[in-house]
């Protein structure tokens, strides 16, 4: 997994690419820290270039959502497609956070 962080208007946008798997948990920890330490209410994970995600990756996304909630921020997942989008749908992520196409 690769992550790039940008600030767009009032949001911190972290774009993930390649694959999000268990072995990426240390890099994803840095993403979590970046989101929480940004002190922004709007946190966006842009998954447009993410090719696939496994169950551990889905677990990490849920942790990101809870970490943002603890920091009084809202997490938005944006641009998921293909296998990633289907996994989010099967996991009913739309019932716990905001999904944007």
């Amino acid at each position, binding site marked *: 997994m690769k992550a790039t962080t940008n600030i767009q208007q009032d949001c911190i946008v972290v774009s993930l690419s390649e694959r999000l798997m268990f072995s990426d948990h240390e890099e994803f920890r840095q993403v979590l820290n970046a989101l929480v330490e940004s002190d922004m209410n709007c946190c966006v994970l842009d998954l447009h270039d993410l090719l696939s995600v496994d169950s551990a990756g889905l677990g990490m996304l849920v942790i990101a959502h809870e970490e943002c909630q603890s920091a009084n921020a809202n997490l938005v997942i944006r641009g998921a497609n293909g296998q990633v989008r289907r996994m989010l749908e*099967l996991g009913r992520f739309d019932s716990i956070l905001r999904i944007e196409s």
Partner: protein
Amino acid sequence: MSSQAAELEPLPETAAEIEDLPVAAQDASAERDLLRRWLGLSAVQERALTALCGEITVASDLVEGSVSDLTDNFNNLAGLARSNAEQIGRVVESARTIEVDGERIDLSEAVCFLEEVLGDVVAKILQLSKHGMSMVYALDDVTSDVRVAEQTIAGIEKINKQTNILAMNAKIEAIRAGEAGAGFSVVADEMRELSGMVNKLALEIREHMSVVTKGIVDSQKELRNVAAIDLSTTIESKDRVELMTKGLVRQNEEFNATVGASAESSAEVAKWISGLITKLQFQDRTKQRLENIIGIIEILKNADSKLCEEAKAATGLSDADDLNRQAWLEHIISECHLGEMRERFARTILLGEESEPESPQETASGEGGGESPAFLDSTEDIELF
């Protein structure tokens, strides 16, 4: 009338006798001849009408019997069609539900339940993954803390080492001072002893920390093995199972629609057959008309017979005297193309019998008895049955 007939002169019979008569007498003779021929024809008509009444009865009975058979067959067909529709209805009901622990559950309800269960499974997998990753992060934090503790121990050991060197230097300086440094030498020894004890404690702590670190590393490996189990195929299988169950429901709906249409067709067939049975009541109306026709023919026949008898009594003529009678009979009979009908006609007209008409089934199997007139053996028969 009979007394008047008895007083009449005998009539001339031969052509020679007629030619010898005067003109007025010749006219009277011609009228008498016409009357005789009419009487002959009337006798034939009387017997032919009797035979016709018999044939109408035969035809009416034939239609009645056939219609009765048709009605029975149609009733059987209607019963089968209704039974078929009921059986199909039961099949539809059976296909729409499944039996679970003796309880009938609608298939769509079962599919919804299955989807709910699968949704719960996926939600639990997500929770499991999340908790697993939280544990991984917690152990990462503990590992970091242990590293800090190990660095702290290293710091203690470094300070202790300097303290030990300091104590050694103090001891050397105390020896150089001689008598005056004796007390200071004791303090230096105590410091070295304390330093050795601190060093020993630091070593013990390091050993314990090593055990803790090893435990964390082992736990992390175990957790990694658990968390690394990819459950995404299980999550994706939910998608597949949902597609299969939806396909099953759709297929079941199509099956129900097709079978339901078949049940409707069967019910429609039963309805049509009932309509046909109703229409077969034409036979009853036809029979009444034929009975009326027979009644009218009987009236005409009786009137004809009565008039003939009166004419015979008045003129002394006999229908047996008509030379054309045989020709009439043969002409009428030759028009009958059905063998059994011709036989009955011949018996009635030639022999004056009013035999009971045979049943169509019996007569259709062959010609009549051995006493039939010769022309009954004609090869011109046209059998319709």
